[in-house]
Structures are given as C-alpha cells and as structure tokens.
C-alpha cells in the first residue's frame, strides 16, 4: 500500500477526532438556536469562561485578585486549598447557571421580538464582555487544566495499525475520550429533549413561543434552562479543549471553527452539528495534508500551499450555502431573497 494513502488514513482518523471537538462546540449553538432563535456567538467564550472558572476553583484562586491587588496594593492570589475536580465541575456548573440567568435577565428579555441579526450582534457584545470579565476575574495567563482524563498516544491502536500496515497511527487518548463524551452527551440531550417534560416544553418553545406561552409554559424558565444546558456543553467543550491545549484566549476562537460546522449542518439540527463537525474536521485535515504535500499537490498542480486550516472550513461552508442555503439537515424555509 502506498505510504501516502496510509498517512492519509491517519489524517482522516485524526480529522474525525478533531471534528468531534468542533461538533461539541457546535452543539451548544444548536441548543440555544433551537429554543430561542438566538445565534450565540459567545458560545466559544462561554467555553473559555467555563474552563477558566474550573481551573480557578480547582486551584483555589481568588477571583479578581489581579484587580484587587492593583487597587489596594495587596498581594493575594490563592486561598490555599485545592478542590477536587468533581466538586469543582459542580461549582462551575452553578456559575454557568447563574450566568445563564443573568444573560436572560439583563439582555435577552429586553430583546424579545428583535430581528435575529440584532440578537446576533448582542451576543458578540456578550462575548467581549465575558472575555473581559473572565480575564479580570482569573487572570489571562495560560493555565493547565487536568481533571484526570488520560492523554498521550493510544498504544492499542498504534500496535493494531502497525501489524496491519507496518505503520502505527498516532491517535491521542484524549481525542477518543472526547468522542466518547460527545456521543454520550448527544444521546443524553436527545433523550432529554424527547422524553422529559422540560425537554418537551423546550421543543414547544422552539416551535412557537406564543403557543407555548398560552399553554402555560414559562418562557423565562425554558430560556434559562437552555442557556444553562448550553453552559454545560460549553463546560464539557472547555474541559476537552483546555486539557488538550491549555486554558487560554485562543480557546474562545473555537467558536469561529464551529460556525462553518453549523452552516454546513444546519442551524437547528443536532445530528447536523455532529455530521457537519466530522465533515469539516476531516475535510480541513485532508485538504491541508494534500495541499501541503510535495508528492500529492506538488505533482498534481505544481505548487503546494500550507496553513489552509484557517479558511478551508469557511470557504467550504460558503460554497455549500450557495447551493443549499439551509444546510445539510436544516429546516427548509421557503423564502425568496
């Protein structure tokens, strides 16, 4: 078997794993969009904020310590205790629920009935605000996050593929765990939406606000619940990405990666987010692999290009949208432009 093909297969599998992580962020978008029609640009920053809070609580950091030190000239940084990961995750979840409440209470309750694009811009404002608050609260240095997930090369796959192709694939254990967690999360969300009372109420709100109101569903409660769920998804995504590459500002940029995923998969579809994530993950890794390889693109086109991952997803989604504006699984809205 030619070695290019084997490498390509490894890239493919790694692309699938990256796609799972994209899908994880995209899920949060879909949840909020389904229930409130808000396209939440701040989802990535919420993941960053959740990860920052988690690390801060685990390390026993004093919130706003930098600001307090600057104002009063003190030197406080840590409480001096360490919180176990499980407990810290619960505390972080409480913070995310409080955030969901505040966002609903102070922003989106006032923006009911506005155009979607206004809501979208409000979430951009929210993203900036949250990023600033997160940095002032926990400091902007790069932090290590370790909640006990296994990391490093998976030896079983390495051995198996070596026996098969005489070339061991490099698959990170963390990526496998992320795939598992994402699968569980999707199953849980689907069960929740299909079979629980609150889930049905959520779908009713998504379908028609006014009708849901008239049968006695509390819009406020549902929205806070949905934003909390999105906060939970953000927390999971933040844990995965934070463990992978450290908790830092660039974490919030994964939201930018999730946008094309959504455009591809359709804004309202949970399976769409998953499939879109996988397509984008595999597509951008394979495209980068092919276009930067001398043996492939160099021979076919006579030139190679690199660092295409920045834009490939967007251009793919853009081209796709021109032919199918609602995405792969999105609802078809009959409307002429």
């Amino acid at each position: 078997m030619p070695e290019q093909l084997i490498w390509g297969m490894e890239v493919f599998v790694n692309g699938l794993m990256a796609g799972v992580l994209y899908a994880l962020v995209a899920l949060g978008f879909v949840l909020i969009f389904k229930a409130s029609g808000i396209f939440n640009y701040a989802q990535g920053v919420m993941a960053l904020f959740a990860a920052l809070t988690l690390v801060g609580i685990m390390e026993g950091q004093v919130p706003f310590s930098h600001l307090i030190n600057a104002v009063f000239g003190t030197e406080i940084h840590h409480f001096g205790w360490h919180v176990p990961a499980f407990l810290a995750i619960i505390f972080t979840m409480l913070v995310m629920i409080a955030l969901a409440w505040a966002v609903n209470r102070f922003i989106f309750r006032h923006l009911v009935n506005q155009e979607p694009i206004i809501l979208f811009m409000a979430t951009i404002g929210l993203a900036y605000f949250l990023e600033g608050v997160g940095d002032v609260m926990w400091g902007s240095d790069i932090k290590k996050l370790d909640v006990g997930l296994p990391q490093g090369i998976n030896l079983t796959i390495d051995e198996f593929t070596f026996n098969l192709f005489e070339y061991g694939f490099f698959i990170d254990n963390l990526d496998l765990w992320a795939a598992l967690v994402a699968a569980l999360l999707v199953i849980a969300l689907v069960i929740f939406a299909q079979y629980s009372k609150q889930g049905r109420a959520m779908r009713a709100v998504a379908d028609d606000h006014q009708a849901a109101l008239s049968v006695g569903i509390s819009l406020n409660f549902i929205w806070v619940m949905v934003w909390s769920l999105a906060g939970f998804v953000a927390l999971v995504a933040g844990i995965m990405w934070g463990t992978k590459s450290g908790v830092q500002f660039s974490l919030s940029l994964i939201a930018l990666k999730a946008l094309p995923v959504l455009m591809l998969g359709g804004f309202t579809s949970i399976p769409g987010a998953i499939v879109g994530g996988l397509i984008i993950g595999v597509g951008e890794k394979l495209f980068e692999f092919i276009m930067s390889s001398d043996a492939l693109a160099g021979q076919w086109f006579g030139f190679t290009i690199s660092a295409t991952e920045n834009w490939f997803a967007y251009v793919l989604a853009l081209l796709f949208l021109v032919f199918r504006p609602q995405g792969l699984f999105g609802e078809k809205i009959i409307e002429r432009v």
Partner: protein
Amino acid sequence: MIYREAGDFKTSYVDDSQTFPIRFDRYGYYAALVVAFAIVPFVINDYWVNAVVLPFLIYAIAAIGLNILTGYCGQVSLGTGGFMAVGAYACYKLMTAFPDVSIIIHVILSGAITAAVGVLFGLPSLRIKGFYLAVATLAAQFFLVWLFNRVPWFYNYSASGQISAPEREVFGVAITGAETAPWAAYLFCLVFTVLSALIARNLTRGMVGRKWMAIRDMDIAAEIIGVNPLRAKLSAFAISSFFVGVSGALFFAVYLGAVEVGEAFGINKSFLVLFMVIIGGLGSIFGSFAGAAFLVILPVFLKIALADHAAVSPVSNALATLCLAIFGVALLLFLAHLVLRVFGRRLWKDLGALCGIVALIAFFAYALLSGGLGWPTDIVAHVQLIIVGALIIVFLVAEPHGLAQLWRVAKEKLRLWPFPH
C-alpha cells in the same frame, strides 16, 4: 434661539432638498470644516495626530463603508478587516509597481480593486441573508488574511513578510514614509474623509440609497416595487468595499507605514468597525463619525485614567478624594437598588440608572483628578473589553440607533425648547 428654523424660508426646491436644510446646521458644518482645514493643521502635534486624529479619520471612512452595507442595505458583514487588507495590499503593490504615479490615484485605485473583491464575496448575499451571510463574510476575512500572509507576491517577496510604505509626495510634501509632517498626513486623510462623507451622504439620499433601504427594510416588498435585489445588493457591496478599501490603504500607507497583515487586519478589526457602526448608529453618516471617535478615544482615555500615574497638585488631590466619596455613596445606593430589584421592590423610580451613571462619572473623575490609577496595562485592556461589550449590549437594548439617535433627539429637543411638545 440656538437651533431654530424660524425665519429660515426656502424659496426653491433646490433649497428645500439640500443636504442640511436648516441654516444653523449648515453653518455649523461649514464652521467645523473651516476649523478642520484652516486651524487644526497649525496647532496639531505628533502625539495627537498619531494617537487620536489619524485613526479617527481613517476608521471613520471604514465605518462609513460598513454603514452603507450594514446600516443602509441591511447586509451584516464581518469581513471588514479582510477588505481593509485588500486596500492596503493593493495600495502597496501599486505604490511599488508605479512609483511615478501620484499616491492619490493609488489610494483611489486600491478602493476600486477592493470594490471588485467585495462584489465577489458579496455574490452569496443573493442566496443567503441575515447571520448566514454574516458568517459567510467571515470566509472573506480569513481567506484574504491567509492569502496576504502566504503568497509572497503580495508582499514583494520581502523577508519579514511585512509591507512597508515607500516615501511618496503630494505637491512636493511627503505624505508617507518617515519624513511625513503630522499636518501633511492629517490634511491628506482629512480630504479623503470629507469627500467620503460627502459622497456617502449624497448616495444614501438619492435613488441608490433608497433602493438599499428598501432592500434592508423588506427585500420581498422591494423586489415587488421594482428594486432589482441583485443590483442593489451588489452595488452596496461594491461601494461599501470601495470606502473600506480606501481606509485600508490610508491605514497602511499614511498611518502605520508598515503592516503585518494578521496583526493589523485580523478579525478584531472587523469587529471594531462593526462596533463603531453599532455604537455610532446604524444607517447614519454622522453615526459613523461618532462611533469612530468614541472607539478611538475610549482606549486613549482609559489609558490616561487607569493605567498612567502622574503626580498631581494637592487641590486636585482633594477633589479626587471628594469624587471617591461620591463614587462610594452612589455605588452603595446602586447596589442596594439592584438587590431590591431582584426581590421585586424599588427604592424609587430611576434611582438605579441615576446612581449608576453618577458612580461611573465620579469614578472616572476620580481617576483623572488623581492623575491616573496606575493599574497594570493588561487589566486596563480587559476592562476595555468589558466596557465595549457592555456598551454594545446597552446600545442594542436601549438605543438601537446609537449615538446618532441621541444626537437627533437632542436636536429635536433644542428645536422645541422651552416647550415640551
């Protein structure tokens, strides 16, 4: 007395439909132009030009451009940074390829090239709209920045990957390069800004602008009454990109001189210009100026108030202490109000807003009077993020038409004063 139409009679249609129909308004703008052209160049210094005035003028052009697309035609674009980069790189290539041609022509040509690129990326707007389009324009942003970063032809194969503006003159006065006098750069940009505002104002008043607004307000209805959506949208993309391109060219050639594309024209630049448009006022030329001024001055102000630290006189120190006391009281009242509100009670109406505003003003007065608080700059940068984010939300919630609407309301009140209605 100050702002009246009384006695300002129009005797012809031309008079009635001029840009500023109220005489006082008109003379106000004339006066502003005279001051800007004839007085400011003589008093301006290097610090003011580079810290405030040049970025203000250049961002104002970009904001006008984006306002045409977003405010007038309703197509949200997040690709402004990328289009500014097109202007900058087009200007660079032209300046180095045709050194004998005047830089004025180069800047205009870069605008035209950006317009062509803008139309190209505007094509999807015929099929998709709203935030789908907003996200689609991100494709332009990332793709263009990558292109200028990766293809050596664009930066003339220079080792650093940067582009730097060679020295060029207009009427024998250096405009770009190290020898530029502050007033020359200022006047050069001012001419472009004033012309842009004039052109944009008249375009948006005329048939083209009305077509854009029809598309913005309801595209289907606009199509029925005979507006061609294809031409209206693409013309908005073209003209908007033209202004953005001009501003990108000026930003690179006159203001910065040397540019690294990912740093100068990244996604944050797109958001910055979008914020200028939102805070200033969607669909208003004046709003573009107001938004640009606000977001250019805000960081400078915050740096002076929070990050710097200077010795001050005892008098202003005493005043600062007074402001601190006012700040404390107002903050306490504000928090008390907030707590009561959460439990569904009120101290008295509007107390929260009043105390909040008083607390903010007192705090910044304290910061200024005590010569700056001397905080670390990274905290100030984050505080700036918080303020900008909060302002976006506040404006979208309370006054979706931005500073321009506040200005409009103030003028209405002045016209009626002292009568309430």
